[in-house]
């Protein structure tokens, strides 16, 4: 991999100004607070964290739907924010969580999937029809679905349509924001299998956002964990999810409920202090909930440090006691 990585984030920050009310002063909310990442062609990066950790903002920055307040988002070596939207949409495409609201209810499935081709002026109408038929077959929809409206399809079928629409321009990078969270388990399994098949067949790269670590581990080669806009741990999926370094990653993993009736409910060691992006604590942002926090955590923000096993982690404890049994 000598050339530029497919996706590169360089110390990206995104701030919003939020109004507090008539008399309250406007306040600054930092949704993404300095994130650096790279993603190579054919790789899949899983992004995990709780609601409000900034993972969806990060997805929108990568899609070019938001402009970073500071830092750069580079796709194939070029800043995504500076690209024309047509060019941008050939590089990066989204698949969103809710296939009920992300498809135009008044257009047929064939029209929805053909739309990007039409907007980009690709092919004649006949060629587009062929390409749409090919895409629908690729995502496992029958030819008869082409004439249907979204309301006539099930949730899983709609998500297949959303995937077909995302892939019809043959983008290099697909940003999946909770693509299976709105689906039943049996449908989720079908969509995850489809995403795996498509990656193998089309050499796609995924930025895969989910709060479900098991789902992430199925799809992603690498995992990044976010907390309050900051990256707290990043590394090879197997390493991060079997030998996590950061107490937050450990807590997330502990809250995954596998269907094993021999195990009861795991103990919850996270404090109940709810993370508030408008009121980030000093030092390590995670310190009020961390069962291991000590004085240094409340004073000094930890830097991301490379750990053995190839993961980066931002934790004073991990830095001081590399083999501590957390």
């Amino acid at each position: 991999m000598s050339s530029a990585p497919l996706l590169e984030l360089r110390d990206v920050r995104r701030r919003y100004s939020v109004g507090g009310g008539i008399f309250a002063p406007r306040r600054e909310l930092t949704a993404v607070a300095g994130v650096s990442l790279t993603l190579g062609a054919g790789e899949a990066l899983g992004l995990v964290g709780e609601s409000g950790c900034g993972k969806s903002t990060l997805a929108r920055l990568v899609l070019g739907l938001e402009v970073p307040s500071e830092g750069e988002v580079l796709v194939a070596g070029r800043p995504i924010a500076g690209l024309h939207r047509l060019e941008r949409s050939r590089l990066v495409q989204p698949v969103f969580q809710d296939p009920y609201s992300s498809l135009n209810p008044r257009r047929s499935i064939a029209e929805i999937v053909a739309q990007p081709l039409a907007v980009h002026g690709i092919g004649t109408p006949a060629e587009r029809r062929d390409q749409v038929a090919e895409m629908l077959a690729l995502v496992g929809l029958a030819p008869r679905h082409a004439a249907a409206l979204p309301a006539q399809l099930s949730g899983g079928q709609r998500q297949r349509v959303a995937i077909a629409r995302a892939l019809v321009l043959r983008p290099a990078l697909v940003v999946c924001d909770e693509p299976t969270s709105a689906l039943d388990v049996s449908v989720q399994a079908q969509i995850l299998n489809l995403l795996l098949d498509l990656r193998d067949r089309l050499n796609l790269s995924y930025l895969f956002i989910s709060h479900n670590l098991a789902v992430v581990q199925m799809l992603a080669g690498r995992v990044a964990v976010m907390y309050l806009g900051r990256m707290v741990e990043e590394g090879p999926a197997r390493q991060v999810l079997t030998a996590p370094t950061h107490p937050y990653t450990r807590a997330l993993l502990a809250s995954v409920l596998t269907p094993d009736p021999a195990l009861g409910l795991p103990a919850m060691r996270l404090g109940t202090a709810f993370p508030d992006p408008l009121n980030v604590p000093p030092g390590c942002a995670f310190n009020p909930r961390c069962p291991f926090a000590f004085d240094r955590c409340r004073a000094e923000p930890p830097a991301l440090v490379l750990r053995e096993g190839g993961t980066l982690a931002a934790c004073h404890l991990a830095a001081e006691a590399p083999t501590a049994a957390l």
Partner: protein
Amino acid sequence: MSEAPLLELAGLSVDIPTEAGVLHAVRDVSLTVRRGETLCVVGESGCGKSLTSLAIMGLLPPAAQRRARRLALAGEDLLSASPRRLRALRGDRMAMIFQDPMTSLNPAWSVGDQLEEIFIRHGKGNRRAARERAVALLERVGIANAGGRLAQYPHQLSGGLRQRVMIAMALMCSPGLVLADEPTTALDATIQLGILQLLAELQAEMHMGLMLVTHDLGIVARIADRVAVMYAGEVVEEGPARTVFTAPRHPYTRGLIDCIPQPDRMAPGQRLGTIPGMVPSLVGEVQGCAFRTRCAFARPECAATVAPRHGPDDHMWRCVLPPETLDHAA
């Protein structure tokens, strides 16, 4: 322990008239919940699990028609109970926790007023006693500064806090039976775990019967004493959680378990098990096993009525296959 079960439900059917014909949304469902027991009702969208819990509470939409051979709370028949009696029981002896606390809390009422109203309405005490109970319960469900929260409105709370308020509200009158319909589905995994722990603790403490409706088999495995798996409006398998998970007898149960990503048990790149096809339409008469159109083991006799079979520990399943058929897949 020969007292009557807390909840007895036998032969429940819910029919909904539609333009295309009668939709048989719930078909001959029988369930039992004992004191101190957690029953999980699991199934995918449209399997009738939520309608079953609404039917128990007597909260079905007006168009839905409920029929049952028996529906009783601690021995008291609910089928013949007057609307007034049902209103007296709901919130007092049986309570429901809904999935979406944003739409099931009243946005125009403060948290304190909503909690206290139930207590006062059921004649448990005066305003002061209600307030004390509300503060105690909010603290019990892990809300810091409970006294200060009483004056807040639902929109001022986060999703996890709202759900905790819902739980506190359901517990205001110490009901014997709590029905929870997907109580943690909209929440983060960390918050979900906190709420499930809370429900389990409160249940043990107050010796409640808990019926938890969910689509998440991970939750079921960790919290249920007994499991009822629903498919197409019918309970296709029911039994102790450990038995149902380790030795499922219905192919649908087996399929659901295989759909769950369990990365530590799978090779990298390995595909998940899937259940092909779609849920059948429940409009009109449903003949035979409703799962046979998606079942890899379907055989001619599946088209006829499938009688329930029984194993040890009150394990019931509706499938014609020899019991050991599904064992190899485990």
